């Protein structure tokens, strides 16, 4: 189904390393947050990006938006490598790509009114627009995200987490983007509010033909919203497939372990099927293991896994995986 759709984004060999520490006399160490990821995104789809905390999924999202300068790799947006653009050339693409944040508290400037926050994108990209038009536009946007238009003159602290998140969404929509990185947009919200926000995001996607990169660690929510799902581990994508395929026929041992860890809301079932957590800890991204990054924790690891990194390739139609034994 996705084959005949147009590619919006092609990520090729994307890497982002941060240097930390270091001073006059000691060398800084390198955190390999994103360590070579490849995937495509199609117009109008939602790609879920899941993984443990610290596996580099947020860094990946932000690097794609050029909020971090990539260490290596290409980010083709409609065929143009935006990683090579200058800051000035990038401004045009900023209108097409936006981000929604995890923390609805730190993502809104407490000193600005909601109207100023939402109309900021307009004052940057359309300085010729009159103030009145901007306010009217902000009101329209507030209605789009199911908020009262009279909120334009209020300050962020007067709102609840869910309302703030919707203000953040309104700000992202102000430039009429095509592509939105949703950086764990619901994980800081109450469960009842999560459903509202996700429904809103789905409605907006349908109305405005948006493409989402949906970063999360809540696997059931990802299954609900995504068309395809990518699983990240220690800066690399280990598996990527259509939603139902990956949830029903996971190939990679890590994906299998993740899926087994989803809590089931049924006490009787939960009692008879205790969750088997993965052994061990995520290795440090400063000094990742040789060979397959998952090998130290993998129950099926063989000698080759400790020596040689597996190739990330298409194991079944539209089902990519990086494992020696799949």
């Amino acid at each position, binding site marked *: 189904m996705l084959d005949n759709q147009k590619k919006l984004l092609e990520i090729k060999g994307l890497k982002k390393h941060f240097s930390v520490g270091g001073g006059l006399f000691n060398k800084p160490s390198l955190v390999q947050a994103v360590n070579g990821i490849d995937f495509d995104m199609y117009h109008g789809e939602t790609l879920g990006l899941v993984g443990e905390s610290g596996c580099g999924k947020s860094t990946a999202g932000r690097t794609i938006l050029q*909020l971090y300068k990539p260490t290596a790799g290409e980010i083709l947006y409609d065929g143009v490598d935006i990683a090579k653009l200058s800051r000035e050339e990038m401004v045009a693409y*900023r209108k097409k790509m936006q981000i929604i*944040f995890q923390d609805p508290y*730190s993502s809104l400037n*407490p000193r600005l009114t909601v109207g100023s*926050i939402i109309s*900021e994108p307009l004052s940057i990209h359309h300085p*010729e627009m009159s*103030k009145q038009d*901007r306010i009217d536009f902000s009101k329209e946007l507030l209605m789009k995200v199911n908020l009262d238009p009279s909120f334009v003159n209020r300050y962020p602290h007067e709102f609840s987490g869910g309302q703030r998140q919707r203000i953040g969404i309104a700000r992202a929509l102000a430039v009429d983007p095509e592509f939105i990185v949703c950086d764990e947009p619901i994980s800081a919200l109450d469960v009842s509010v999560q459903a509202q926000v996700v429904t809103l995001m789905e409605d907006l996607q349908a109305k405005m033909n948006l493409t989402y990169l949906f970063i999360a660690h809540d696997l059931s929510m990802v299954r609900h919203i995504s068309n395809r799902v990518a699983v990240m581990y220690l800066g690399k994508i280990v598996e990527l497939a259509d939603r139902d395929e990956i949830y029903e026929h996971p190939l990679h041992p890590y994906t299998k372990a993740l899926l087994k860890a989803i809590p089931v809301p049924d006490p009787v079932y939960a009692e008879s099927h205790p969750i088997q957590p993965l052994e061990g800890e995520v290795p440090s991204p400063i000094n990742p293991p040789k060979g397959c990054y998952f090998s130290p924790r993998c129950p099926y690891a063989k000698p080759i896994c400790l020596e040689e990194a597996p190739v990330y390739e298409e194991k079944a139609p539209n089902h990519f995986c990086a494992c020696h034994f799949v």
Partner: protein
Amino acid sequence: MNETVTDVQDISLAAEGIGVQLRSNAKITWEKFLQHKLAVISSLFLILLVALCFLAPLIAPYEFDAIDLMNIRKAPSLAHLLGTDALGRDLLTRLLYGGRISITIGLTAALLGTVVGTMIGSIAGYFGHWVDNLLMRLTDLAYSIPTLPLIIVISSYTDTQALGIVLIIGLFSWMQTARVVRGAILSVKENEYVTAARALGAKDRLIIIRHVLPNISNSIIVGATLGVGNAIITESSLSFLGLGVSPPTPTWGNMLMDSQATMSSQPWLTIFPGMAILLTVLCVNFIGDGLQDALDPTI
């Protein structure tokens, strides 16, 4: 959306629109400031004080350098409301004249120090990396220079008028502000609204002015209010060393210094200039308090 955007071409209209918004924001702040009683009283008092000082030639009962050797070190009386000094000069008159210089130096030197410190601190904190290193080492360097000897050297080469003293004090008092501002910015710039602004394509200057500085205004205001007191005191030290404003022109600082020897026998010579400095600094602090509250939308 694109249609509405291309429709609007009237730039003068846009400029007018921005003006309206600025006024309304300022109006909210102003209304909140007026609710802060202490700050309003302090402002009125300070305005009165400034007015009296600058109108000194019109309202002062005597000349500031009118020596009256028959009436030296007289206690406050009807003829001399605040008494007279060692040369029989009227203290009230000298206090009014002295306020002109002391208040001017206090406010302008503190303003200069705050502006320079905020600029250096925000550039260092926001851009980080080598810019931060360079500017902060420069700050350390400026800190490590003993200010007083340097000021002595500089002022011995220059004609120390009030303006010169403002520049000297202002340019040697920015380091504290720079460090505090840098530290505050390091934490504020991690907020996601800063990332959001970058994702929208905002320029660094806009991000600093619109998103970062308003959120650290508290530290800046505290620094500035402390700076006013410091500047007045520094001016008095300079006067004491004969490097400040030279006699017979009075300043609160040099009046305070002159009265040191007679503090126990003629306390009014110390108390009144001291009170003048105290009240001014206190007023500035209260105004700063009111400003902080007025600028904070959550209060």
